[in-house]
């Protein structure tokens, strides 16, 4: 395996947050954090039923300043702090949503969301089904997630597989400021509960965007770069990485198409299948641990639907199956351009079996016993 040399995105350590509004140097576009803040403002202006609540979201404006100024603008009735208890926050929001409000709750960090999981899994996700559609919970659960920001323990997890595995939730994760704005507005307006995963390493990423913007709706993946040889599937924090890898791949003669899923639930099979049928090769990239992860589901779906178009197995570039490491080790854990290129290189460009699974005593295990002999 190639040693990763990519350095993590420069970002301040959390929870020390960077203000959303920067005056200098002149901004080249809008940050994702600012886009999210605008989305909340516009959603609250558009609909009195929208409430923003959570830990530190009030006068402080959230540890990432995503709710900056909302209490001042809309009053402490509309944007307010809660006691520090995630199950209580989620459960309280259930009651608000049952009675006609549209709560947007912030669970401060990915790993701090876990105490809220029973409420999410046993009630939020199931309420529609268990009441035969009589009770809908139009609520948004915002979770800053993912690593790459040099954070201490419990501040860098990627929990999307837990949410996506739970029927009844919608799971959204933007990769651009425009999507951050549009998908959050759509999440607030959606009749179903939405887990809105915000890649914290992209909070300070910028791109030119004119607000209010509406991008493709839930359930639509988009090609961020078109290509003919390989489809690289990414979402949230790994989309910029996939684009970087595609650029590097082009220098080596591979034309890479980058698909940004945008919403994991609903899942856009159609766009992905159309892409892989054209390219015949597919690599999935995510930060979360690979075992039983979202990438495993995507690989299965692509192979079920594109088998006769595939020239190679679908490969995954993911975090290793270890707990999220200490900050000085995270660059070894996170997917890198080199690892994506390494995966692309293994996509059966010739007739050689994938050497990774042929090493004696390697992870190929039992699969090695039935492998074809190398020519």
């Amino acid at each position, binding site marked *: 395996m190639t040693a990763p040399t990519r350095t993590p995105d420069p970002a301040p350590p959390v929870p020390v947050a960077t203000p959303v509004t920067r005056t200098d140097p002149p901004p080249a576009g809008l940050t994702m954090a600012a886009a999210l803040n605008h989305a909340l403002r516009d959603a609250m202006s558009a609909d009195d039923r929208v409430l923003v609540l959570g830990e530190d979201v009030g006068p402080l404006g959230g540890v990432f300043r995503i709710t900056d100024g909302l209490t001042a603008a809309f009053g402490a*009735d509309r944007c307010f702090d*809660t*006691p520090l*208890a995630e*199950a*209580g926050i*989620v*459960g*309280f*929001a*259930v*009651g*608000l*949503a*049952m*009675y*006609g*409000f549209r*709560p947007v709750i912030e669970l401060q960090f990915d790993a701090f969301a876990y*105490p809220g999981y*029973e*409420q999410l899994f*046993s*009630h939020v996700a*199931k*309420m*529609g*089904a*268990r*009441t*035969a*559609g*009589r*009770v*809908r919970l139009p609520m948004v659960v915002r979770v800053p997630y993912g690593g790459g920001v040099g954070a201490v323990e419990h501040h860098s997890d990627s929990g999307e597989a837990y949410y996506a595995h739970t*029927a*009844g939730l*919608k799971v959204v994760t933007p990769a651009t400021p425009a999507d951050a704005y549009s998908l959050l507005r759509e999440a607030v307006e*959606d*009749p*179903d509960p939405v887990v809105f995963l915000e890649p914290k390493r992209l909070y300070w990423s910028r791109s030119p965007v004119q607000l209010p913007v509406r991008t493709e709706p839930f*359930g639509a993946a988009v090609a961020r770069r078109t290509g003919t040889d390989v489809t690289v599937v990414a979402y949230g924090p790994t989309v910029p990485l996939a684009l970087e890898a595609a650029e590097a791949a082009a220098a080596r003669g591979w034309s890479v198409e980058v698909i940004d899923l945008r919403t994991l*639930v*609903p*899942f*856009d*099979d*159609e766009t992905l299948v159309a892409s892989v049928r054209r390219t015949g090769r597919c690599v999935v990239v995510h930060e979360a641990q690979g075992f039983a992860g979202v990438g495993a589901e995507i690989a299965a779906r692509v192979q079920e639907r594109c088998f006769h178009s595939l020239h190679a197995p679908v490969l995954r570039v993911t975090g290793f199956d270890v707990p999220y490491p200490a900050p000085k080790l995270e660059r070894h854990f996170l997917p890198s351009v080199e690892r994506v290129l390494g995966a692309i290189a293994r996509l059966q460009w010739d007739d050689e079996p994938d050497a990774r699974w042929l090493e004696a005593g390697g992870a190929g295990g039992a699969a090695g016993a039935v492998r074809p002999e190398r020519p």
Partner: protein
Amino acid sequence: MTTSVPGTDPSRPLETVSELLPSATPVRFLDPAGEPVDEHAGYREPDSGLLARAYRAMVIGRRLDTQATALAKQGRIAAFPSSRGQEACQVGAALALAPLDWLFPTYRDSTALITRGIPPVEVLAPVRGHRHCGYDPYLHRCAPMATPLATQAPHAVGLASAAARLGEDTVALVLLGDGASSEGDFHEALNFAAVFRAPVVFLVQNNGYAISVPLARQSAAPALAYKGVGYGIPSERVDGNDVLATLAVLGAAVDHARSGRGPMLVEARTYRLGPHTSTDDPSRYRDEAESREWATRDPLARLETHLRRAGLLDDARAAEAHQAAEALAAEIRAATAQPPPTEPDDLFAHVYAAPPASLAEQRRALADEPRATASADVGGRA
């Protein structure tokens, strides 16, 4: 009904510890034999009209319990969680609420639900096996019965806060058990309710056992009602087998919450005369002498003795209540004689407001399968 908790000043928030503390002994109007006792701490005795309604509701609730237990033993419905012996708590809770208030029950609160006016067949939907919740929560202003313990408590706090935001005077009453008082959601709900001054009444039906685990393994508190003090919530203890007391205390608690002075916690000491469910064997964990002793404190018998002595109940009125109970039992038997109607598509119908494409694909695949036989749709036995 009292309009405030005795000893408190309605004109200001409760602040001192002594104002938050429950009575030293559970509030009661009647001793186990139905004799009046002066241990009601200033709460006002419910009027005769309310007691007549309570009697009728308890007779009907008791019959629902015996009928559902019998059907469970016959395998017509799944394991039924009996609330025999807890009728004074459940009827007291349901009758303390106004029509526009909300109830947040658990799986053991069938008697409260039918007292609230929900058709018994809809209440029994989970054990009939075709739906997790058989009634319309908005129509009856009653949340689905919660099975994970205490998880509905924060919902009640959120809903009550929502109603208050809209300028309504709606109160939410949460039913909980002694076991649920150990769950984190119980404590988070109490805390949220207190911080947001939500109009919520928490009623802990302390029946002494969480399935098999006795109270001593659940809590070392002097009484569960003391758990309110740390959150700044006024609390009360009540004899859960004396419906005069539950009506009086819960009525005052609901009035307290409705007046804008925040939540209240009530612990009702009672006893589950039956098993945890129809598949449970209480002899493995509790003494029969104890059960016999509690049987002498039967809340229904206690009320009947009192009403007859006070000249508030005669044979004719008692017979009418029992006839209504038999009619309800017959309705349940008729409804459960056949398996409930199910459609395979029920799996998909309501998961999302509009099914995503991936789910629509699975829905079509199921629709294309050969239909399962009707017998396979019968609700299972636990």
